[in-house]
């Protein structure tokens, strides 16, 4: 079993829809949670960064962390064709002690149709 599980999709939605992307994990030591967006043939771009449990909102994006369920989510409101990309979750435990080595999910391909 992988340490971080992420449905690879592809997930196809109409423009304007609310998108929910999810990851589950098995290591209860994870404390820092990230979402990256990666366009084709580009490097991953840090989208959201949260520490421990709770919600964080940035424009159309909301990141949720539920440590009790070992489950994280990224919500995209009013999705746009420009949101079409691969979304990667990543997490780390004790970044200072372990050099902030991230464990990544496999990525979910999102397609927003106009």
């Amino acid at each position, binding site marked *: 079993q992988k340490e971080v599980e992420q449905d690879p999709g592809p997930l196809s939605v109409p423009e304007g829809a609310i998108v929910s992307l999810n990851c589950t994990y098995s290591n209860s030591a994870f404390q*820092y949670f*990230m979402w*990256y967006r990666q366009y084709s*043939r*580009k*490097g*991953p*771009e*840090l989208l959201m*960064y949260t520490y421990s449990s709770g919600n964080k909102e940035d424009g159309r994006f909301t990141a949720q962390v539920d440590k009790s369920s070992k489950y994280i989510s990224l919500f995209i409101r009013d999705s746009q064709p420009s949101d079409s990309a691969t979304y*990667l979750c*990543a997490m*780390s435990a004790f*970044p*200072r002690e372990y*050099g*902030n*080595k*991230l464990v*990544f*999910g*496999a*990525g979910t391909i999102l397609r927003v149709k106009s």
Partner: protein
Amino acid sequence: DAGITQSPRHKVTETGTPVTLRCHQTENHRYMYWYRQDPGHGLRLIHYSYGVKDTDKGEVSDGYSVSRSKTEDFLLTLESATSSQTSVYFCAITTATYEQYFGPGTRLTVT
């Protein structure tokens, strides 16, 4: 883009030849990383560095070596390239607040 550049951006090489990829950062971050990204495997850590001359292995380090003689440069070397090392290679840095940023990538093909 956190001031990260990678060179070359594309390279085609033959099996058995040595290859060096360069990562350069302009913001004096202590931690630097090399990842490879392959379909079905996602991003996997090859090596990382926590300071000049301080490096450690990641998940998939076999066949790779690294060096960091200056804070701003982190080199990844394939001593004798194999077809299984055909991949996209990303360099990354971590900031003081533990945010990790990636470079634009190097697409390597070993024929």
